[in-house]
C-alpha cells in the first residue's frame, strides 16, 4: 500500500510537471502579445520594451521556463499582469467558493442519479424506466449555460424561489450546484441502473427473495449496497469534469470562484493568472484521481493495489 502510494505520488508530480510545461508552452503559442495589453494603446515602443524587460519576457524561452518552475516549487505563482498583485493569494481566495460549488454539485448529482437509477432498474423496460433514461439523456446533453439561464429565469425571476445569482447563503448555492451537477446526475442514473440490474440478477438476490424478504428490503439491503460501489469510485473523477464546468456555471451565476477568475484572466490575457488557475486546478484533478484509486479497494475487496 505504502509502496503504491509513493509510486502514485511520484507519478502525480510528473503529471503536474507536464501540465506546467504544456500551460507554459501554450502561452507562447497564443498569437497575442501580453506586453501590448499591459502597455495600452498610447504606449511607445520604448515603454513596451521596458515592460518586456521587467517581466523577463525578453529572455530565451527555456530560461523563462526555468525561472517560472523555480518560483513554482516555492509556491510563488508570480504577479498578475492586470492587477499587479500576487497570483497565489488571489487563486487561494477564490478556491473556497469553487470547492463549495463542487461539493454542492456532487450532492446534487448523487441525489438525482442514485434514486433515479434504482427506480429505473426496478421498473426495467416499463414506461418509468424509459422516461427516466430519456430525461437522463437530455440532462447529459444540455449545455450548462442554457440550463443555468433557464433555471434562473424560471426559479429565480418568475417564481422567486431562489435569488438571482450571488454568493453567501445556502439558497444561492442550490441553482448553480444543480446546473453543475445535473449532467452528472443523468450519467449516474444510467450507471446506477445498469449496475443495479446486474446485481439484481445474482443468486444471493434470488435467495433473499426466496427467504420472503420484502422487495424494498431486497433492493436496498442487498442490491443497493453492492450496486453503489462503482459510483463511489467515480466521484473522485468528477473533480476533473467539474473543473471545466465551473468556468461556465460560475459566470452565469456570479459565483466568485476560480472559474470566474479564469474567464476574466483569459479576456484580459492575464497569463500568470491563467497559468496559476490551471496549475491549481490540475493539482485538484490529480488529487481527485488519486483518492478515487485509493478508495476503490476499500469498498470493493476484489480490487488490489499493486
Amino acid at each position: 500500500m505504502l509502496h503504491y502510494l509513493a509510486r502514485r505520488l511520484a507519478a502525480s508530480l510528473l503529471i503536474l510537471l507536464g501540465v506546467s510545461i504544456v500551460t507554459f508552452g501554450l502561452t507562447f503559442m497564443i498569437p497575442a502579445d501580453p506586453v501590448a495589453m499591459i502597455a495600452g494603446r498610447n504606449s511607445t515602443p520604448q515603454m513596451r520594451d521596458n515592460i518586456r524587460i521587467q517581466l523577463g519576457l525578453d529572455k530565451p524561452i527555456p530560461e523563462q521556463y526555468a525561472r517560472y518552475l523555480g518560483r513554482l516549487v516555492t509556491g510563488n505563482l508570480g504577479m498578475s499582469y492586470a492587477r499587479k498583485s500576487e497570483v497565489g493569494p488571489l487563486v487561494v481566495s477564490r478556491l473556497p467558493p469553487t470547492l463549495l460549488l463542487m461539493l454542492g454539485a456532487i450532492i446534487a448529482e448523487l441525489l438525482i442519479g442514485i434514486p433515479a437509477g434504482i427506480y429505473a432498474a426496478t421498473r426495467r423496460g416499463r414506461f418509468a424506466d424509459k422516461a427516466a433514461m430519456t430525461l437522463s439523456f437530455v440532462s447529459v446533453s444540455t449545455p450548462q449555460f442554457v440550463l443555468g439561464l433557464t433555471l434562473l429565469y424560471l426559479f429565480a425571476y418568475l417564481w422567486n424561489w431562489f435569488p438571482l445569482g450571488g454568493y453567501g447563503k445556502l439558497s444561492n448555492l442550490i441553482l448553480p450546484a444543480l446546473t453543475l451537477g445535473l449532467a452528472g446526475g443523468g450519467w449516474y442514473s444510467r450507471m446506477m441502473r445498469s449496475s443495479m440490474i446486474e446485481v439484481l440478477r445474482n443468486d444471493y438476490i434470488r435467495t433473499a427473495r426466496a427467504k420472503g424478504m420484502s422487495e424494498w428490503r431486497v433492493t436496498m439491503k442487498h442490491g443497493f449496497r453492492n450496486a453503489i460501489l462503482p459510483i463511489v469510485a467515480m466521484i473522485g473523477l468528477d473533480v476533473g469534469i467539474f473543473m471545466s464546468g465551473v468556468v461556465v456555471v460560475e459566470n452565469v451565476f456570479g459565483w466568485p470562484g476560480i472559474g470566474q477568475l479564469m474567464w476574466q484572466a483569459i479576456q484580459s490575457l492575464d497569463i500568470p493568472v491563467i497559468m496559476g488557475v490551471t496549475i491549481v486546478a490540475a493539482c485538484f484533478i490529480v488529487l481527485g484521481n488519486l483518492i478515487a484509486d485509493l478508495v476503490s479497494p476499500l469498498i470493493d475487496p476484489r480490487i488490489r493495489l499493486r
Partner: protein
Amino acid sequence: MKKLLISAVAALALLAAAPLAMADAPKQGGQATVTFNNDLTTLDPQVGYDWQNWSVIKSIFDGLMDYKPGTTELVPDLAESYTVSDDGLTYTFKLRDGVKFHNGRTMTSANVKYSFERAVNPATQSPGGGYFGMIAGYDDVVGGKATTLSGIETPDDKTVIFKLTRPDATFLHLMAINFGYVVPKEEVEKAGADWGKKPVGTGAFKFVEWVPGQSIKLERNKDYFRAGVPYLDGVTFEFGQDPTVAVLRLKKGEIDIVGDGIPPAQFAELMADPANKPLIAEGDQLHTGYVTMNVTQPPFDNVKVRQAVNMAINKDRIVRLINNRGVPASQALPPAMPGYNPDNKGYGYDPEGAKKLLAEAGVGEINTELYVMNVDPNPRIAQAIQQDLAAVGIKAEIRSLAQAEVIAAGGAGKAPMIWSGGMAWIADFPDPANFYYGILGCAGAVEGGWNWSRYCNKALDERATKADAMVKDNQKDARITEWKAIFDDVLKDAPWAPIFNEKRFTYHSERLGGDATLFTDPIHIPVNYDYIYARDAQ
C-alpha cells in the same frame, strides 16, 4: 402675433411646470447598486484602464482639472486656478485650500508631483504614462536615468509648475485624465503590491471594502471639497453579474444600474416597452467604429481601392443591425467631438461608383481578410461588411478572433482589414488630437502600435504638431479649424472606412434620479456616480 401668443403660453406652461421639477430636486442620502460582469482589476488610477474601473476611479480620486458633469467642458478641479505662459511651455497651477485625502491628511503640491512621476516611472507599468511625454524630464525617467521629473516644480505647498518641452494644446485635458490623479505617497508605499486594492484619494467617494470577485463598497466622503455632492451615501458595485441576469434583477428592483449596458439580445425588447422610457438614458459618446485598411500592402496601397471600400459599405444597414444603437459615421471624428465637420458628408453608399473606382484602379480580383473580435455583435457586423464588399467584387474572408489576438495582428501590421468594434476607439479626452496620433499618425504606425492602417502622412503629422502648438485662448478656434482640415484630408486618403458612432444606453432603476447626461457621461464612462441621486432618500 399668433406665434408670439403660442410662445407666451408655452412660457407660462414652463413656469407652471417648474415647481413640479423642483420637487424632484436631488436629495442627499440613499444607496445605489451597480452590477458588472467582471470583477475590477485594480483601482490604482495610474494603472486602471478599462471601462469598468474608469469612472469608479474618477469617483475616488481627483485630478488638477475635470469636466462639468455630463459635458466635455474643462474646469479646474484640485487646482483652483491656473496660468499659461506666453510660449505655452509653462503651466502654473494654484491648488485649492483644504483638500484632504480620505486618510485625513491635507493634499499638497508634492503629492501632485509624486503622482505624475509614478505614472511615468516604468516600474508602475502605467498604460497612460506615455500621455505625459511633453513634461520636461520625461525621457530621463522612462530611460531609467532619473526617478523624478525635472519639469515639475513645487515652490510651495499650494503651487505646482509644469515645464514642457513642447507647447501642447491638449495639456489641460491630460491634467484631467485618470493617470494624473493625485495619490498619497505614504498610502501607496504602505500598501505595496496591494495599493490597487486599497485606494485612498481625495474624491467624492471613499473606498470601504473590496470582496474579491463579489463586490466593492464606496461611501460618501463627508469632507469632499465640493459642498453638497455626492448625493448618494454609498455605492455598491456587484461583480460576476451576467448582464442578462442583471437586467432581470433590475426589473425585480434588486439593483439600480446595469453597468455593462443592455445586452444586444434584450435591447429591442426593453426599448419596445414604453414603461422603460424614463429608465433608459441615451447619450452620445466619443466613439467611432471603423474598418482599417493596411495602406502598406496591396490592394489597399491604392487609394482608389480604399475609397471604393468606403462607398461599398451600407452603413445604414449596419446601424439597423445593431438596433439603431448608433448613427452612421461620415468621418473619423464623432459628432460630439470638437473638430467634427458637419459639412463633410464623407463617402455615400454607392456600389456602382465603388465598382467603377475598382475598375479604374485596375487591381484585378481582390481576395483579402477582415479581422474582427469574436464577441457579439462584431462578427455579425463583419458579415454585413463582407456581403457589401462581395457585391462590388471584393472577397473578404472573416478572421474572428479573441480581442488580444486581433490587437496583436493589428499591431504587427499583418491584418489587411480590421473591424474596430470592441477594441477601438473611444476617446480618452474630448479633443481631436486624441483621435489622431495613436490611430492615424506616424507615431502609431509602428510594431505594436494602434494605427492598424499603418497610415503615415508626414505632412499631416507636421500640421498636427503645429496645430497643437496653438495653446493661447485666442487661437482655440483656429486650432480646431486646422484639425477639421486635417481630418478632411485623412478622409480623402481613406485609410479607414468609418462605419458608425455608437450611442450609449444605460438602464437604471426608477429610484435613481439625475439627468440622462449623467447616466451616459462622455467622460465618467459609464455613469457619473457623484451627481446621480436616490429619489427615495429620506
